[in-house]
């Protein structure tokens, strides 16, 4: 889009509309005074106030003034443009003017909500209004360009969130790439035994979905893979996926376990990650019996062939399908998609960060996830809750809020641990008949059936002590305490500090953003919040969108949440992707850069500065040229252009200079 394509619409006649926003603005700013002030500004022909300009009657005021020929430019002084710029642009268009003859002054988020002194607030509001009035006089008509949308979707992360989103999209006929970092999908949910509050078996409700993913004709499952690069923009993303080598051909392996049985390691020797290190595996392994895809993989860190090169490779020999390939290489796949859903989940808090709880020091202090594996029938103890020495515990403590609600570690509540702790307390009590003590600060049981589950636990005779655990040690002070772990906590309901000796401790560790969240978010060009979770566009009204169009979030990567909320978000993210794809096109914001050819000297300064390679040199004309479809509208080239030949639509030098004059010249 060049300057000559956009037009002025005659001498500016500006309408200024100052919003009350109920008392949000009117409570702090003298709206009537601002309207009177606006009337004194250059080119202002109409100035009005209204309670809620974003409402239908409010928008109608603007449209009527345009139709009556009183105005051909609109300034609305109200909330943030990030809130309602599009609303008012549409209103301007509906009134009959090009939607870009519009400018907003943010006098709510930036003024009335953050200023206590009314006089100062009114002054600031007037300054911002004057800035907008000055600026809008230089606006030109602009058109959005339409670009088609690629109908395929990328889902990153194969936990319950990613699985649900992928199935929803695939069922609607869309092609989905599901990329999962681990060798199997299932995520954390696959590690659970039962889920609260129904005590549904996690595997029973999850594995059918995992299986559906595997067999769905519209889903391309790339496990043991990571997204390494994303380029492009909404509707037109170009993604590189790095498929890590399993050293087993996925198309040939049928998951028969022969290679694992015949491995030269007769007994497993290496820490089993899926079982939280509670048992061992061989270098060639399948993560768990329901792993999807059910394909073996070889760990090069522990495999004798990779380490010494001298193995007999009995695994390869045993494989009837010749699926083992020690020469397999990493593969880079390049795909094009229209929408991306991030469902990368969470990690658990590292209990070693709280040394006074003794994790890693006392063998019978476990994390909740470790306990999940113990109570799981396909776990290391076949579902028995046993101490390290193989005996059943007679008393177990479950400690809530480990790492959460804590100024020293994470300020936030991890939301799921209370319910998980209740569930574990129930399962432990059921399996061992031990005395179970839950140490909690508050009991957070907000979901459907959650409070009732708590009641059930109370009825089952689980002991509840309201007090944050101060310390766990093995320093016995009486004969009864010998050989036990002593929990010290204040029982705040009775006001006494108690010492409770137990055989086993379960730490309900909180949830945290994945360790590489910062790196991952850069790949997708989104932000992280202060706590490390991916940042949503709006915590209430847009919890699955991000500020990057086309990229949505689902599940715990956006913040701690339980399975029902995760599935709900996955559906929401899928809906957003579908809305985008079914519309079929995206309209690009016309705030792109353009070159005024008659002033371009061909100095080439701009060309190397564009991160999107949107500017090229036209040798036969000796000038530069901007590709409007590639330009993202950052304006970096414009600031560098030494002759001012480059300008940015909606952010021209002229517009900004006049905005500066406006904000500073009157009040």
């Amino acid at each position, binding site marked *: 889009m060049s300057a000559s394509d956009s037009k002025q619409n005659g001498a500016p006649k500006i309408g200024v509309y100052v919003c009350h926003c109920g008392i949000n603005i009117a409570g702090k700013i003298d709206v009537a005074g601002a309207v009177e002030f606006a009337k004194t500004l250059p080119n202002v022909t109409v100035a009005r106030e209204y309670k809620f300009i974003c409402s239908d009657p409010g928008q109608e005021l603007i449209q009527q003034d345009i139709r009556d020929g009183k105005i051909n430019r609109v300034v609305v002084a109200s909330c*943030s*443009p*990030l*809130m309602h710029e599009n609303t008012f642009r549409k209103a301007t268009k509906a009134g009959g003017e090009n939607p870009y003859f519009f400018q907003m002054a*943010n006098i*709510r*988020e*930036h*003024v009335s*909500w*953050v*200023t*206590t*002194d009314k*006089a*100062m*607030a009114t*002054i*600031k509001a007037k*300054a*911002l209004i004057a*800035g907008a009035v000055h600026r809008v006089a230089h606006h030109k008509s602009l058109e959005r360009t339409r670009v088609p949308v690629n109908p395929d979707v990328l889902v990153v992360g194969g936990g319950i969130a990613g699985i649900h989103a992928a199935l929803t999209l695939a069922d609607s006929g869309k092609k989905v790439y599901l990329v999962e970092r681990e060798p199997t999908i299932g995520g954390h949910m696959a590690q659970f035994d039962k889920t609260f509050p129904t005590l549904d078996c996690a595997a029973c409700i999850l594995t059918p979905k995992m299986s559906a993913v595997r067999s769905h004709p519209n889903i391309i499952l790339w496990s043991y893979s990571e997204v390494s690069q994303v380029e492009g923009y909404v509707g037109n993303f170009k993604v590189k996926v790095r498929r890590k080598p399993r050293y087993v051909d996925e198309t040939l392996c049928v998951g028969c376990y022969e290679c694992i049985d015949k491995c030269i390691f007769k007994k497993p020797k290496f820490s089993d990650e899926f079982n939280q290190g509670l048992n061992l595996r061989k270098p060639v392994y399948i993560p768990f019996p329901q792993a999807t895809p059910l394909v073996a993989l070889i760990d090069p860190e522990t495999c004798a062939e990779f380490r010494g090169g001298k193995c007999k490779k009995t695994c390869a020999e045993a494989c009837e399908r010749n699926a083992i390939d020690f020469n397999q290489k990493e593969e880079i796949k390049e795909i094009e998609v229209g929408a991306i859903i991030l469902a990368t989940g969470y990690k658990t808090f590292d209990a070693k960060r709280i040394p006074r709880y003794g994790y890693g020091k006392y063998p019978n202090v476990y994390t909740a996830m470790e306990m999940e594996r113990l109570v799981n029938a396909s776990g290391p103890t076949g579902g028995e809750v046993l101490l390290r020495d193989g005996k059943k515990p007679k008393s177990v403590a479950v400690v809530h809020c480990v790492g959460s609600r804590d100024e020293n570690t994470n300020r936030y509540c991890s939301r799921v641990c209370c319910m998980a702790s209740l569930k574990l307390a129930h399962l432990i009590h059921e399996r061992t008949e031990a005395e179970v003590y839950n140490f909690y600060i508050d009991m957070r049981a907000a979901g459907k059936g959650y409070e009732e589950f708590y009641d059930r636990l109370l009825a089952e005779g689980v002991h509840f002590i309201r007090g944050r655990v101060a310390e766990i040690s093995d320093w016995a002070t009486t004969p009864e305490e010998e050989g036990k772990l002593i929990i010290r906590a204040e029982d705040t309901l009775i006001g006494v500090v108690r010492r409770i000796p137990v055989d086993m401790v379960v730490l309900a560790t909180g949830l945290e953003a994945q360790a590489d969240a910062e790196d991952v978010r*850069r790949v997708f*060009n989104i*932000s*992280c*919040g*202060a706590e490390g979770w991916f*940042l949503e566009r709006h915590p209430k009204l847009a919890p699955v969108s991000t*500020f*990057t169009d086309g990229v949505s979030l689902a599940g715990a990567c956006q913040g701690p949440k339980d399975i029902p909320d995760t599935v709900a978000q996955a559906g929401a993210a899928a809906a957003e992707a579908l809305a985008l794809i079914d519309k079929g096109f995206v309209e690009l914001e016309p*705030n792109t850069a353009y070159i005024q050819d008659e002033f371009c000297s061909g100095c080439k300064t701009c060309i190397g*500065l564009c*991160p999107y390679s949107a500017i090229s040199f036209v040798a036969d004309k000796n000038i530069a040229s901007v590709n409007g479809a590639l330009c*993202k*509208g*950052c*304006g*970096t080239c*414009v*600031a*560098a252009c030494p002759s001012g030949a480059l300008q*940015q639509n909606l*952010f021209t*030098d002229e517009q*900004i*200079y006049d*905005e*500066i*004059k406006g*904000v*500073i*010249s*009157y*009040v």
Partner: protein
Amino acid sequence: MSDKLNTNKPWEPRIIAFFCNWCTYTAADLAGTARMVYAPNARVIRIMCSGRLDPQFILTALREGADGVLIGGCHPGDCHYQEGNYKALRRFTLLKRLLNEMGIEPERVRMEWIAASEGDRVQKVMNEMTEHIRKLGPLHLEPKAAAMAAHGAGAARQGAPV
């Protein structure tokens, strides 16, 4: 320069802030939503990226009467447009040297990296900068821009101050 409309009030610093849309402007909105109160002395001008910031804007702001200029951009590595903030940093580094040479106190022109979730940082920076400039006093760059004919336009005042 005191409020033209009310000369009885003591002088208040007037700062012009250039905020990038994705990080700083969003953070300022967040500060608003969370009702964080801060000094109302900075008037925000929104640009898409700190990379759009032309040093001519900063000088215009000072010449037109601002006592200070604040530039807000994304943290290094976080720019929505990859590298715009680095280009802003390069230009700002050189401009700062020049401003120091011209005798303009360093606290008057400031660049801050503020992430989209750092509403509290917006509050802190606004308060801090307002106080610094309050201590420095008004800038009073004379003559005012309107009295100085930018080249090519002509129309100087008779008897311009010397």
